[in-house]
């Protein structure tokens, strides 16, 4: 079916279709609450949630900023650690073998299990525990993807570099890093969602008030269901923001590979091939 659509129609459909589905779901939801009469504590209506968003806008913004900052710091630290350690592990086999069990255990540690421990470790008034949790959560996918990316160089490229008598720094700059780039960016994109989720979940387990997670739990505990939902909407928006920014970063950095003037095939095929290039780097 979609093969018969012009690229422009396809793009329009891609934007309109999810919007239509969203509007439809919200309509049904509102209908269930206000006409069928589902009680407010089970499911607040979209209208009442919107009301709460408007009413407590300032608090939502500051909560989003707190959680967002924690997630961002965690993501940045996790990224730097992940790339550095992966570079070391790719360079020295011993580092790889030493770090493998640590990485494996970090990958299976539930964030929920770490949160109370770290919160009591760093005190009730410190955001550090939450940032550490976000960093640990984002570290793992970045490390694994980056290490894999560093191992993608082909023998012919490595021998070429040897024939050119390239220094280790030059090999890293001109061969290893560019080869690993799509893998690193995929790791960061996966980690971005994890950073937001873990920063948020960590707030459920004590520590300073004010973040989205703690406000969701207090609102729900004090039966302010619509307000709790308003904060949930804000956390969804925050997660989406992180995801879209990292996706944009990925597209931007890899643009030389995706935007190619291809004169041998028609525009239609170009757009599909471009998309398939992106999706291969996306799926891991």
């Amino acid at each position, binding site marked *: 079916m979609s093969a018969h659509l012009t690229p422009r129609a396809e793009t329009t459909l891609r934007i309109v279709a999810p919007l239509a589905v969203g509007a439809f779901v919200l309509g049904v939801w509102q209908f269930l609450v206000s006409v069928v009469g589902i009680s407010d504590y089970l499911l607040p209506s979209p209208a009442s949630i919107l009301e709460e968003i408007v009413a407590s806008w300032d608090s939502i913004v500051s909560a989003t900023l707190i959680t967002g900052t924690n997630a961002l710091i965690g993501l940045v630290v996790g990224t730097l650690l992940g790339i550095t350690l992966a570079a070391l592990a790719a360079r020295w086999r011993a580092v790889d073998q030493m770090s493998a069990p640590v990485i494996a255990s970090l990958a299976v540690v539930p964030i929920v299990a770490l949160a109370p421990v770290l919160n009591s470790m760093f005190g009730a008034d410190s955001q550090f525990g939450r940032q550490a949790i976000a960093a640990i959560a984002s570290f793992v996918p970045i490390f694994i993807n980056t290490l894999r990316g560093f191992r993608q160089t082909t023998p012919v490229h490595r021998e*070429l570099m040897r*024939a*050119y*008598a390239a220094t280790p720094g030059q090999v890293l700059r001109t061969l290893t890093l560019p080869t690993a780039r799509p893998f690193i960016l995929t790791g960061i994109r996966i980690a971005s969602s994890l950073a937001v989720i873990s920063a948020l979940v960590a707030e459920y387990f004590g520590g300073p008030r004010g973040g989205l997670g703690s406000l969701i739990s207090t609102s729900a505990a004090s039966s302010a269901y619509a307000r709790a939902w308003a904060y949930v909407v804000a956390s969804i928006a925050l997660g989406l923001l992180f995801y879209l920014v990292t996706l944009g970063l990925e597209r931007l950095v890899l643009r030389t*590979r995706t935007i190619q003037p291809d004169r*041998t095939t028609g525009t239609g095929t170009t757009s599909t091939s471009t998309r398939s290039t992106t999706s291969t780097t996306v799926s891991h």
Partner: protein
Amino acid sequence: MSAPENAAAPEPAAAAAAPATAVRVAGVNKVFETRGGLVHALEGIDLEIAAGEFVSLIGPSGCGKSTLMRLIADLDAPSAGTITVFGKTPTQARLDQEYGIAFQQAGLLPWRTVAANVALPLELHGVASAPRKAKVEELLDMVGLADFADRYPDQLSGGMQQRVAIARSLAEQPRLLLMDEPFGALDEMTREKMQSDLVRISAETGAAVVFVTHSIPEAVFLSDRVVVMSPRPGRIREIVPMRLGASNAATTDAAARAARTDGLREDRSFFEMVTAVREALHGAPVAAGARGVETR
């Protein structure tokens, strides 16, 4: 490209200072340790390649022809014996960028344009941007890809990619070119075209070439001498000098090479040389029935 330019000694300054021998291989053995035991890849190899000479290494797979080229390139070290490249150790020659190299796979960096790929060695060795650009332009012109400078490798055909790789190997005007089956993955028509291009380019630059191949006609067409090797252990069985065209025995290698054209492929001497190499490969005169030589 013009004849007088070829008749003059290539790179007079370099030729005067450099020894007349490009590569000297003496008593070289190479043993690989594998899980199945020791593999003698090369045994008792002696070979001398003059400056500006085109030498092909030919033989069945496992005869160590690629290994020999890799030893010259210092991508591997010999187990015994010595190799000198322009009077230096292979390692020193590699560090001094005395040779250019091309493999069976083009090995282009996919995130770089054609021009940036050719510029890579120049960039790595700190050539300034302006002369680099000029050199890249000249090289792409030489391999006939000037119009494709801004394309990416995956937009080119296999033959075009290989031409980019050859341009890249010539970037620093090496006195020695090492080529490991560079046309092995190409179709026959592209291959013949590339062979003619290579003959022309090597005559233009006056570089010595070590060319690994498993195609007899290719070796015969390109070379001044064909080194026939046999496997297990890899040894040199025979070195067959090529006398193509009628009367160029006295002229220089470069001039002889410039005279080498596609017409030669149908010349009687070409078939005679093909037969000579075949006989050397098989170790005995080929039966009379093989008169109609297959030009595989």
